[in-house]
Structure formats: structure tokens, C-alpha cells
């Protein structure tokens, strides 16, 4: 891509963002008279939140703000922390480097697209942050990036700078390529079985341990020649050293347990079991190791390893003391995570605040960003959503979404903007380049704009699609 085009695209993003200019200069905001679901200290009725310089400065009743503060009257409305999606592939232009079974040298940081419209749509559903993961095509995938959805900003503003590094692992049907076809004359990629998946991971860690030793020896002066850097093994050394979080895609409880045992062997903690749709079967084993689980509430049966999923999964894990989050792995499901969280109250009876935590504080804990976000507490980033009703009601919708005190979604402004956009669309349609070629109803000789739909775990670089989480 040439420089001019990049500049043009960045300008386009700025122009497209309907909210950039007016709202983002305000550094003091007072949200007044709301019902606040803190996700930390229960629910506060008729209370205010004072935001200063992007942080939550005060929470209480009848708070005062400076003369220049933006005041938002939230009477009759509900405020929650911004929703955090612990498993997403939004804004990624590539998801799977699936050519090898170990691709720890890659990272999705190199594939971020800050003008992906799904970012804005996520904000409109109250999602402020996400764990952007490599896909599940290989046993050890690429490095992740944890972002805040700062729509309208340049790409370097998206990653949360102090979020711990992470990496994607994958078990089961996807890494063993159950759903891929092997072309005639092509050798199938190893592994093709769950046996091979475990050996692939174990082998990689054995190599990483040897590699670490070669550096340790060199640093201790035992060897004279500096080892050659190995970008595949470096991230795995970081895992062994506890500096990089493992997010392990998998479904069947037996293989997730086998991975936990490999982690025991190499002395690290797996941060999250992703999907973990059978995790309820091994709840005590997971709880003992302090591993988190990030699930769908009740999405099931779409493939065979998702056949033993139950909607009581969250409840059983929660009761066992596991930190549970509810994720989307999907740009569409991301838009209704509040409903998915509400369901866990019904299936087993998880209390309201614990259910809310499954889409706010718990994913923040799993991602190591809970010191700055995930709940409404003084000193944390002002990542907030104002809802027109209780966030667990199907009839409620976000009215405003804040990240670090700035408004990134405002429904009233969105609606006001629609007539402007419609006018612009009509004007663009009148341009010569957009007129039908023959004037007879056929369109010009070009491919219509189709949205990229490779927002799934198993989507290939070519954009293959499928429900292959």
C-alpha cells in the first residue's frame, strides 16, 4: 500500500467517525443520577460518576463538577462498565497463519484494521475492549493483542500498552484440520489427531526449554557464542517464564486437562481455556490451577466437539471458584453479550453481579487489565456504558459508550447523523463512476462491495468462512 493511500484511509477514518471533534476534548464529565452496576461493589441507585482526565474520579450522590464539565443526565438509566470480549477476531485482516503447526513467531498486531466497521458496531453494543486472538488452525498459533475500541483513532492507539502479552493455542478439531480438505498430491499437515496435537505442543516447549538453557548458559558465561535468536521459541520461553499468557482454544474436557498437565510439566499457568464448552466436567481441576475459562453461554451443537455443551457450564465453573468470562468469537454475537450474560442467571442461578462480571471484570482479570478497567471503581479508566434500561433486559440498548472518559458512541448523535449520510450516499450514487454502464439497470463492470466475513477462528488468509470456532 502506498503512503498516499494510507494517509487517505486515515483521513477517511477521522472523517467517518461522527463523534471525534466535539466530544473528545472534554476532560471532565459528570454522569448524573443513574443506577450504577459497578461489577465491584454492587448496585448504586441515584448516583453520579465524575470522570476526570479519562479516569473515574468520584462515585457518589450529588457530586459537583467544574464549570466546563460535560454533564450527562442519566435519570432512569443504567450504567455498567464497558463490556470486554475475551475472544474476538474483530478488526483483523488476517486471522490464521495456518501453514505450520507452530506459528508463535506471528502476531495479530500486524493485521489490525482500525477502520473495520465492526468496531463501531461493537461500541454501539457496549463493548469497549477485546482480546484479539489468532485463529485456531494450529496447535500453537500467533500472539494476541488486547485493544480498546478507540474508533476514529490511528491504529497505534488501540492496543492497551500495559496489557500482558499473550498467545493463542488450539486443541481439537481445528488444529487437526478436521474441516479442511487435503488437495490431491498434498501431504496432510501434522498433526491429524489429538495425540499429535499434544505432542506438537509438548515438543515446542521442549525446544523452548533447550533454547532458554542455551541463553542462560551464554549469560552465565558457560558458552562463548551468542545463540541465534529464534522468533518461534522466544514467545514460548516467555510463557515458561510467566511473561506471556496462554489462551487455549479447545472444547473437549479431556484435552483441555491434558494441556493443563503439559503446563504443569513446564511450570506455567494457562491463563484461559477458550470456549471450554465442556469445562464444567473438569471444574475442580481447573479451579485448582487458577486457570480462567472463557465460554459461550449456550451456543452449541454446531460441531461435534460442541455437542456436550450445556448452558449450566458457567454456573458449575462459577460455583467451583473459577473466573469465568463470556465471549463472542464473532462480530455479531459480540453485539449481545449482555443477553448472553443475563442467561447465566437463569441457568443455575448465578447472582446478578457475578453474571455481569462475566462480561466485564472477569475478562479483565483473565487478560491482566483489571487494575485499569472492568469495573466502576475510583481510579480506574472511565470505560462505561449508559443503557436506557437494565442491561440484562432484552429490551434495553446502549445510549452512550465511553472509553477513558471520551464518548465513542452516542445513539442520539448516530441517529442525527443518518440523514447526512443518506444525503451523501445519494450524491455519491449520482457520480458518473457509479452510474449503470448501459443506463439500462445493470451496474458498472466491477465487483460489488462485499464485507469481509472471515471473522471466525478458522477463517484462512484467503477469507474462507465457516462456523468453525
Amino acid at each position, binding site marked *: 500500500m502506498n503512503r498516499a493511500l494510507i494517509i487517505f484511509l486515515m483521513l477517511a477514518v477521522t472523517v467517518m467517525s461522527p463523534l471525534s471533534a466535539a466530544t473528545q476534548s472534554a476532560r471532565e464529565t459528570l454522569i448524573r443520577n443513574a443506577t450504577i452496576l459497578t461489577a465491584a461493589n454492587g448496585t448504586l441507585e441515584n448516583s453520579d460518576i465524575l470522570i476526570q482526565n479519562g479516569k473515574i474520579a468520584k462515585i457518589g450522590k450529588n457530586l459537583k463538577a467544574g464549570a466546563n464539565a460535560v454533564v450527562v443526565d442519566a435519570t432512569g438509566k443504567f450504567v455498567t462498565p464497558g463490556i470486554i470480549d475475551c475472544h474476538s477476531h474483530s478488526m483483523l485482516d488476517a486471522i490464521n497463519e495456518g501453514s505450520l503447526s507452530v506459528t508463535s513467531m506471528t502476531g495479530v498486531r500486524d493485521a489490525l484494521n482500525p477502520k473495520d466497521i465492526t468496531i463501531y458496531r461493537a461500541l454501539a453494543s457496549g463493548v469497549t475492549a477485546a482480546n484479539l486472538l489468532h485463529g485456531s488452525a494450529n496447535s500453537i498459533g500467533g500472539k494476541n493483542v488486547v485493544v480498546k475500541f478507540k474508533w476514529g483513532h490511528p491504529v497505534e492507539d488501540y492496543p492497551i500498552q500495559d496489557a500482558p502479552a499473550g498467545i493463542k493455542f488450539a486443541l481439537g478439531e481445528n488444529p487437526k484440520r478436521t474441516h479442511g480438505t487435503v488437495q490431491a498430491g498434498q501431504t496432510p499437515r501434522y498433526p491429524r489427531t489429538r495425540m499429535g496435537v499434544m505432542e506438537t505442543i509438548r515438543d515446542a516447549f521442549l525446544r523452548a526449554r533447550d533454547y532458554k538453557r542455551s541463553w542462560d548458559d551464554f549469560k552465565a558465561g558457560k558458552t562463548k557464542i551468542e545463540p541465534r535468536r529464534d522468533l518461534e521459541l522466544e514467545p514460548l520461553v516467555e510463557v515458561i517464564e510467566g511473561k506471556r499468557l496462554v489462551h487455549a482454544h479447545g472444547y473437549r474436557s479431556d484435552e483441555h486437562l491434558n494441556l493443563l498437565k503439559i503446563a504443569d510439566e513446564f511450570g506455567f499457568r494457562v491463563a484461559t481455556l477458550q470456549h471450554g464448552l465442556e469445562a464444567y466436567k473438569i471444574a475442580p481441576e481447573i479451579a485448582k490451577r487458577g486457570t480462567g475459562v472463557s465460554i459461550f453461554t449456550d451456543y452449541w451443537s454446531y460441531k*461435534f466437539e460442541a455437542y456436550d455443551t450445556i448452558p449450566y457450564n458457567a454456573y458449575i465453573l462459577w460455583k467451583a471458584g473459577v473466573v469465568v468470562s463470556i465471549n463472542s468469537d464473532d462480530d*455479531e454475537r459480540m453485539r449481545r453479550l449482555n443477553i448472553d450474560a443475563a442467561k447465566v442467571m437463569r441457568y443455575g442461578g448465578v447472582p446478578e453481579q457475578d453474571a455481569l462480571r462475566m462480561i466485564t471484570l472477569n475478562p479483565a482479570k483473565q487478560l491482566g487489565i483489571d487494575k485499569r478497567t472492568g469495573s466502576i471503581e475510583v481510579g480506574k479508566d472511565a470505560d462505561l456504558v449508559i443503557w436506557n434500561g437494565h442491561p440484562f433486559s432484552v429490551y434495553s440498548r446502549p445510549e452512550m459508550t465511553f472509553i477513558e472518559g471520551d464518548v465513542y458512541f452516542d445513539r442520539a448523535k448516530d441517529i442525527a447523523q443518518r440523514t447526512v449520510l443518506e444525503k451523501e450516499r445519494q450524491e455519491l450514487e449520482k457520480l458518473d463512476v457509479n452510474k449503470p454502464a448501459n443506463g439500462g439497470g445493470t451496474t458498472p463492470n466491477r465487483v460489488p462491495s462485499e464485507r469481509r466475513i472471515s471473522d471466525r477462528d478458522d477463517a484462512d488468509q484467503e477469507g474462507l468462512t465457516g462456523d468453525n470456532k
Partner: protein
Amino acid sequence: MRLRNWDLGFGILRVLAVVSLLSVLSLAQADGSQQNVLGRAGTFAIINARIVTVSGEVIENGTVLIQDGKIAGVGTGVQVPKGAETIDGKGLSVYPGMIDAATHMGLSEVPLGGASTVDVAEVGDQNANAKAILGINPNSSHINVTRVAGITTVLSFPTGGTIAGQAAVINLWGSTQDQMSVDPTFGLVINFPRVAAFGGFRFGRVDFNELVRRRDQRLEELKKTFRDAEAYARISDAYKADKTLPAPVTDVRLEALTPYIRGQKPVIFTAERERDILAVIKFVEEYKLKAIIVGGQEAWKAAAGLKKNNIAVIYTNSFNLPVQDDDAYDSLWEAPSKMAKAGIKFAISTGEDGGNVRDLPYQAGMTAGYGLSKDDALKAVTLYPAEILGIADKYGSIETGKMANIVVATGDILEPRTDVKYLFINGRMIPLTSRHTELFERFKDRVK
């Protein structure tokens, strides 16, 4: 509805996968977890309950009497017969069983990788004679999972090709297809030819004019089949009236089309965008069909033609993403309210395979956050689909004489926190068990 990576390659691994899948399924059946529990018949009186009749006013503190499979009485002054089993409905709300008018229930147990359990799409482009009812597995685990969420009746339809086959209306009760069947051949599903570049990523870019040409060609083939079917029906009638004429050679595909081309039964067209819906309307007018649209993203833009031709819309896009980047973020949540304002007859349905049909109430409820009235949202999953499916004389509301498909819930049935406490189908009290409750019971106490 989602795009799926249909992959029907058949290597040794796949054979093994199929074998292992079958063995696991049969094990699951052996322990009863997949069997369609039939419940028990009886006379039941739900008393002191809030009754959301849907067709009329909400009755506070009323009684619903269930007898001989039907609703025998509704209201505050209902006499409870001696020997009736009484259910105290204090604090509970009674609803008619919900209806999902667009599913593949029973036709697809494990869509990805479980090809042996998938029976949604027949080979070939025109399969009017393919009947969903013959492929529905009465013992699918999806059935119990769905009904314990309050959904008691669904339309199950085939996909694939242009003429996909005939859809069935079924109750989620019964040991056989016949027992489940409400209307085994309700409607003919046609995937109306459209300009779409599906598979375009995989096969490279396709010239737009070429796509238009392909659409036109498929439409011509469809029209030819309809003309053939008209001729076939006329020949058959003539032969029936005069046996001295040469007997027509039986053609099962054309024969299956007869009630549809004559407007006796509805043709269910899948169509989303305005241009495709307008094309369907033109086709319906040309062939004088009884028609329904499934999908209907932009149906509100074609209100005049839909109303003129009495075409209802089964809307399946609450849980989909807007198609174009510059579509309003809530355009697919707003569409039902626009249909309501335009006076289009519609229902809200999931379009799901079976496993996730239980999201139906939330798919409807969510649109009530974006303009639709709560009353319409509820009707969109009860009375409206019953009307569209031609079964409103028996289903879709709580009225004396209707079939007793009844759900007793802890509150608003469209809310995700609401739980179902009692369930009746055909007047039988159904246990609230499913594959999920059984796995829950088996594993919940491992935490102790």
C-alpha cells in the same frame, strides 16, 4: 443464519469420525438423553396466574383449564372440574407456546463435521418432491432443548438448490414424524435466484455482469419448470376427466409442484435485499402464487407490493450483521418496526439449524429495543407465525378450543432471565428435561 463451510470430502478420517459419531449418538440414546420424552396427559388447571392470552387482554389472577389436549377454559371465572390437577400459578405468567417459522429442526444435528447427521440440502437444483418431514429426526436432542425454552411449534425447511423442497410444520412432541406433524407439506421453499457472489473469495473475483447472467439463467430455468408444472397439471386433470386420453408419464417433481403453482399452498421464497424481494413480487404476480418471504432484511422497502399480493415476511435477521458498512448499526433490529409501521404481515424467526432455535424469544425481544412494540414482539413469535403458517385456529394464543400448547414462566417470556416452570404440548405435561439438564445433573456435584 450463518454461512457454513460445507465440506463433504470423504476420506478415511471422515469415515472414522462418522463411525465414532454414530456410536456416541447411540450411547446417548441408550441412556435416554435424546429421546423425546412424551410427558403425561390429564386435566390440568393452572390457577392464580397472570395469563398473557396474546389474542386478547392480559388476565391477572386467572385460570387456564387444559382438558383432552385442548384449552377448555380461560379467565377468572373458570370452573375447575373435580379431579383436575391444580397448578398454583401465583407469581407466574402463562403464555401460548412460541412458534419459530424458520428452522431446520431435526434435519441437522451437528452441521459441521457431522455430515451423517445433516439432511438439509438434497443434490440437484430442483427438488420440489423433497419433504422435510421425511428427514426430521424425532429423537434429535435439539427438540427437548428447544421446547423447555418455551418453543413448542416450528417450521422446519430444507435448503439447497433453487427449489429446495417442502417445509413441515411440527410440534416439538412425539415419537414419530406423524405424531409431530401439524402440516407435513405446508409450503414449497424456493431460494429465489439472485445476484450474489457466494464462494467468490474462494474462486476469485467474478465479473458482475456474469453474475447477473447466471441469475437470469437460473430464473429462466425456474420459470420453465413452472410452465412445465402447469402443463403437467393440466394434462393430469384432463386424463382424470377422460381416461381415453393417453396417460401422462408420472413426474414426481412436477407433480409435487401442482398445489403450489395453482396457488393452493404457499411458496416460501428466501430473499433479503429490496431488489430480490421486488423480483419475487414480480414472479408471484406473473404466476399468481400464494407466497411468503423468509429472510426479509429490506422487506419494509417493498411494502406496497408485499401488501398488494398478501405476502407475509418471516424475518430471520435479528441476530445478523448489517450487510453494508454504511448501513445503520441497528438496521436489522429496526426492520421489524418498519414492517409493522408499513402494515406488512410478519413473524420473527431464528433461521437456525435446531440447536439454537431457543434464542427465538431474544431475537424478537431485541427488536423491541429498537422501535417495535413489546406487544408486537410477542405476537411475532406466537400469533403472527401461527397466522402465516395457517394454524391460528389451533395455535398461537390462549383461547378456549385451541390446542393446549402452553408455557408457564417466571415472568416476561422474551426476557433472558425468565425461566420456564411448566410446559404443555397437546395438553400433555412435559418434563423440563433435556440433554442439557441430564449432563448438568451428572456433573454439577463434582465441585463438592
